[in-house]
């Protein structure tokens, strides 16, 4: 399973989201490849899931991957709930 964490520039924020997602996945005992990138590059990739903010989800409308919205990238609980709801 491949998960892509997306922010505007693909540098700092998406990396933090990636680190937090990896932590949550470890807690849940789920194996996945997590990467981070910018919104332009995300359009050309086909991961299983994309994690991003509400604003950026709008620019990714129509993307073949399933988009999961996370509003607070530092809230491990929110990420956990979002992943649990969508991964099953």
């Amino acid at each position, binding site marked *: 399973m491949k998960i892509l964490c997306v922010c505007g520039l*693909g540098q700092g924020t998406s990396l*933090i989201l*990636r680190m937090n997602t990896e932590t949550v996945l470890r807690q849940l005992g789920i194996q996945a490849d997590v990467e*981070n990138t*910018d919104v332009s590059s995300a359009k050309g990739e086909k991961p299983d899931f994309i994690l991003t903010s*509400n604003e950026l989800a709008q*620019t990714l409308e129509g993307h073949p991957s399933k988009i999961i919205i996370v509003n607070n990238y*530092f809230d491990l609980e929110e990420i956990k709930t979002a992943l649990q709801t969508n991964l099953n």
Partner: protein
Amino acid sequence: MEIIQWIATNIFGVPAILLGSIVLLGLLLQKKSTSQVITGTFKAMIGFLIISAGSGIITGALTVFEPMWAEVFGLESNTFSNYMGQEAFTTKYGAAVTLAMFIGFLINVLLARFTKFKYIYLTGHMMFWTTMVFAGVVVDTKTDIPFWGFVIFLSIIMGIYWTFQPAIVQPFMRKVTGNDNIALGHTSAFAAVLAALLGKWLGNKENDSEKIKMPKGLEFLRDSNVITALTMGLLFCVGAVILLIKGGAGAEDIIANSGDQNFIIYSIIQSFTFAAGIAVVLLGVKMFIGEMVPAFNGIATKLVPGAKPALDCPVVFPYAPNAVILGFVGAFAGALIWLVVLGYSVAYVFVPTMIVLFFHGATAGVFGNSTGGVRGALIGGFITATIVSWGQYIMVTFLIGSTIPDTAMWAADTDMFILSPFIKFLAQILF
């Protein structure tokens, strides 16, 4: 002695190898699997090499942009001569920069461990650019600095900056986020604080930006590739049209560069090449930062109980999405005004670097809105453009001209412009 010499030349003298070694060590300490250790180390090294390659592309496009606008303003174009450039600079000083980043981070961790300032700076790409630009300023001051003196000087400055920048912003940050859990670790700090203070003084808090309805369809502004290509494209086109109308020997020389191609088409391609170069550099930075920051984070959480992460500026964007757009609008308008003013007053061609204007303007917008509503957000953006444009002029002309002005033109930003004169002053005293 031969072994030490060999290590100095082939490990500490080759930035990609040094960086690879640091990342390798970090991954081993985190007890990652073999495949993660190998891919992580390789990606970090490849990423570092990509940065140099991308810098060449950006410089190529800038050497078209600068003379074009110099001719528009009727200036002698001489900014682009007699400097080292990012590629050569990285080859020579990249290892020192990498080490300074690493030791600077350790100083940050120690300060957080033993003082009441519990901030851990985790914005890796800004750590890289800030150290790089400060290194450029130091080498511009004096070229024959001993390696370790250079590394230690930079490390101490970075360690102090990474600890206290979040601490200074935190009172204002609490106002934005409404909690004390996260801090801002970003070089837009000076503009953000100034925006919050000016917002309080000149703005109107009642008129909060989140009460107004923003027009739909502005989402594309969040895509950094698009805004860079769009604005540089416009500026290249305007410059090209002015040159075509103006004519004269100077203009004809520049137009001749396009050969058989239409000059406007040629200019559009140059602007997109500029955006492409930035995308390449960012890919490289992402690849090596993506391996380094998790390792840094692992070290920090082990050593500093109660550590507060200082994070990249988009962390504040969700708290006031409209202020993000208003801040950018303020910064963009300011940049265009200063482009013309700088051209005619001090004969400097300002490169309105969109990534800096967007992210810094937006951050200042959010902070300005927290104290001064809509007006505060717009003022925050304008203040950002003012610091960035005048800062770039002062930096390129007086502080970094012989080393990496090419990088300073698009990657240097608010706090770097504010702090660089002090760095230069300290370097003059110490070396």
